[in-house]
């Protein structure tokens, strides 16, 4: 099938099998190998990317379903020498060991800070009507879709906390 995929602000014409997941399209067809394949079943979060500003597991999406959507991958956040605040904070705080889960962690963390800024509650928010507390329990719960086999969780938490002000934790409107 012929499709056009918009990734990190660039439009790409692709001719792909309809079975191709968004993750495989990014990695194998567009050479954007930052997004990783851990489980390929929606369980680990290594493949997290943004679609229209929301985090999703790209291994659970068909590329052909995303014509007209705006996809952002880790490559779209920053690059060596010009890291985004979250990327820099992960380096500063040892938010990884092998680094395999890291692109997914960072993409997820970026959305998470935005959801937080917009006052979305989580499973551990007691009061649904008040603004949630930026506690470790909240961060952990909200990052629960991203597993780290090296168990770099303490560093991940610190990095997210540290980068939060620079990432703005601001309110934004993302399309569905």
């Amino acid at each position, binding site marked *: 099938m012929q499709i056009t995929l918009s990734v990190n602000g660039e439009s790409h014409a692709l001719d792909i099998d309809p079975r191709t997941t968004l993750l495989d399209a990014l990695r194998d067809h567009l050479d954007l190998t930052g997004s990783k394949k851990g489980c*390929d079943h*929606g369980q680990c979060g290594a493949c997290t990317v943004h679609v229209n500003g*929301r985090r999703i*597991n790209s291994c659970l*999406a068909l590329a052909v*379903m995303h014509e007209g959507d705006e996809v952002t991958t880790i490559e779209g956040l920053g690059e060596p020498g010009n890291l985004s605040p979250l990327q820099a904070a992960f380096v500063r705080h040892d938010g990884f060991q092998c680094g395999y889960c890291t692109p997914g962690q960072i993409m997820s963390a970026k959305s998470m800070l935005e959801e937080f800024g917009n006052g979305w509650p*989580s499973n551990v928010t007691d009061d649904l009507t008040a603004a949630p507390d930026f506690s470790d329990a909240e961060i952990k719960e909200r990052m629960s879709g991203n597993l780290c086999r090296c168990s770099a969780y303490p560093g991940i938490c610190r990095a997210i906390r540290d980068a939060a002000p620079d990432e703005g934790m601001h309110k934004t409107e993302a399309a569905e």
Partner: protein
Amino acid sequence: MYDFEFERPRSIADAVKALKTEEAIAFSGGQTLMPTMKQRLAMPSKVVSLTAIEEMRGVRQDGSGIWIGGATTHATVARETKDSYPALSSLAARIGDPAVRARGTIGGSVANNDPSACYPAGVLASRGVIVTDRREIPADDFFEGMFMTALEEGEIVTAVKVEVPETAHYAKFIQPASRFPLTAVFVAKYGDGVRVAVTGASESGVFRWTEAEDALSGDWSADAVDGLSAPDGSDMISDLHGTGDYRAHLVKVMTKRAVAAC
């Protein structure tokens, strides 16, 4: 995955047409269907994506109830029903993890009728009605058993309607690895009676615990549940996470917790 054709219609009418092909399958958020297809447990000849159908999306006030488009994601339901129906919002906000909630939809969840899914309990307790491309089906008749519904071949869940109760709560005993409920109970109190819907427990999927409904309709208090014996454990799911008797016990405990939290 086995090979399939792909279509992404823009209207319900076109989707119904596309689904006329033999072995065609409606594909909503895909959070269950994608893994199923990858494991080759499903082999559709054609995948019809419902994600581009604008008329199937959104949350609206509908008389005294709420209308939720079938292709509305859990994240959207969580956000949009926060004021109008907090118990339903909290159910939606606790499904899976955030990435799953950004894709998974209410229509997909009820159509799949996983015996441990959250939505069937919320919809059944909320006197829900399942709207399809051809009719409206009361939730009481819709959920027929584990992974079974009243849907016919090619029929699409276009919306779900719920009645907003006086008060309600969803008490979920979470299975921490999968985030599915090990057992969960949605209790909803209406002016003329109480509804208690249980998911994650029974071999035949979501069900109403009518003994508890009767007891609570007469005496709206957690104590009213005390006098009841737990439902029969022999019909309950038994797996490495818990025996049938354990789940039966949880039904009672979670019902009490739900009422106490109202």
